[in-house]
């Protein structure tokens, strides 16, 4: 069982939670940031995901996968609830400038519908195959595939000079 299968209950092991937190947090923060466009929201969501996992940790067979699903759900829920999701944080200060096409693509990504943005991030950042994306999003593989195709088609159209 790969995603969140329930095993025989054992005691919650806090060192295990701590290890999980240290190993998974940054990866999940990047995922949440790419889905929401907000650093502070990403931090909040990852925090909440761990809080939600804590009482269930003993019964979750694959905590990293469970956390990923929780983060994706929280990101989608946040975007549904918040008009702010359409805006983005000011660009962080940094020593380099991105090529124009990177900025343009980031803007296009922000304008996509939530479900399409999610499937693109899971496919092209997390490198998940369609079957895994479907499991994360709780939809049929065919649905995930069609969302991916629609999102890519939309991006291509918008990218066209």
């Amino acid at each position, binding site marked *: 069982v790969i995603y969140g299968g329930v095993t025989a209950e054992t005691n919650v092991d806090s060192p295990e939670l701590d290890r999980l937190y240290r190993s998974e947090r940054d990866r999940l923060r990047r995922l949440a940031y790419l889905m929401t466009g907000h650093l502070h929201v990403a931090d909040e969501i990852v925090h909440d995901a761990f809080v939600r996992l804590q009482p269930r940790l003993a019964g979750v067979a694959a905590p990293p996968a469970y956390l990923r699903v929780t983060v994706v759900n929280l990101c989608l829920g946040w975007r549904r609830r918040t008009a702010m999701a359409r805006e983005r944080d000011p660009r962080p200060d940094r020593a380099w400038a991105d090529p124009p096409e990177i900025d343009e*693509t980031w803007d296009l990504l922000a304008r996509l519908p939530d479900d399409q943005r999610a499937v693109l991030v899971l496919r092209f950042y997390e490198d998940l195959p369609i079957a895994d994306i479907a499991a994360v999003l709780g939809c049929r593989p065919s649905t995930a595939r069609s969302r991916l195709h629609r999102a890519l088609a939309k991006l291509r159209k918008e990218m066209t000079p």
Partner: protein
Amino acid sequence: MSEQVTLAEAEDRLRRTLARRSGDVPPAGDDPVPLLSPDPDLTLVPASPSGPRRRRRLVAAAAVAACVAGAAAVGVARAGGGETAEIMPADEVPATATVPAPPLTTTVPAPPVTDPGAPRPVQPLEGGENGLDPGLLPTLVAGFEQPGVAPNQEIWLYATFYPKPDMADVPAQGDTREAVAGAEVPADLDTAGDYPAINVWLRYEDGVLGLHSGMVSHDEVLAMALTVHRTPGTRDFTMTPPPGWEPR
């Protein structure tokens, strides 16, 4: 007339954009896990972009951590029924601890029936706030690949178990229903779709196993369905893929 960006170019730009932008997230540092809070309000409310709740959670976690004099190493010993727990200091309290570590008794909230953030089985993108426990998630139980063929292209073969509440998402009956002699599951095998995309559903008391395939022949998928064996009382399945396919 402008020329449309090719699919490969679009995918490449997208990968580079996501990789670059993920670099906007600075490392979080080496903080211990700031999660252990006795306040159920801090664990069950939905995510919010505002900061006060996070600060409250951190303050509460810091208080607990101070009490146990070992913030990162705290054991939670469940008491009867899972309703009450005693937060105990870990076996190995740092030698430099100056604060005694009295045990705290608190109440650990039972897992909520509905949790808007928890993984849920039914269309989380379109459904309501109907979070369910992880045992109700569709689970990928097996995936196969052909050596030399890139996965996730036009050829695929995998099996997913859909627990019972998720069966609403599975067609009550496929395009065809075939009684196949020799199948471990005495029920019919539902097949949906035509080559090149064929789904075969094996129905169990507690859910449905879907065999999803692309560019695999109808006979091959059905033959694989006949080899499915489920360990009783579990969600562990074994199956034999068609010749040339290997577990990935």
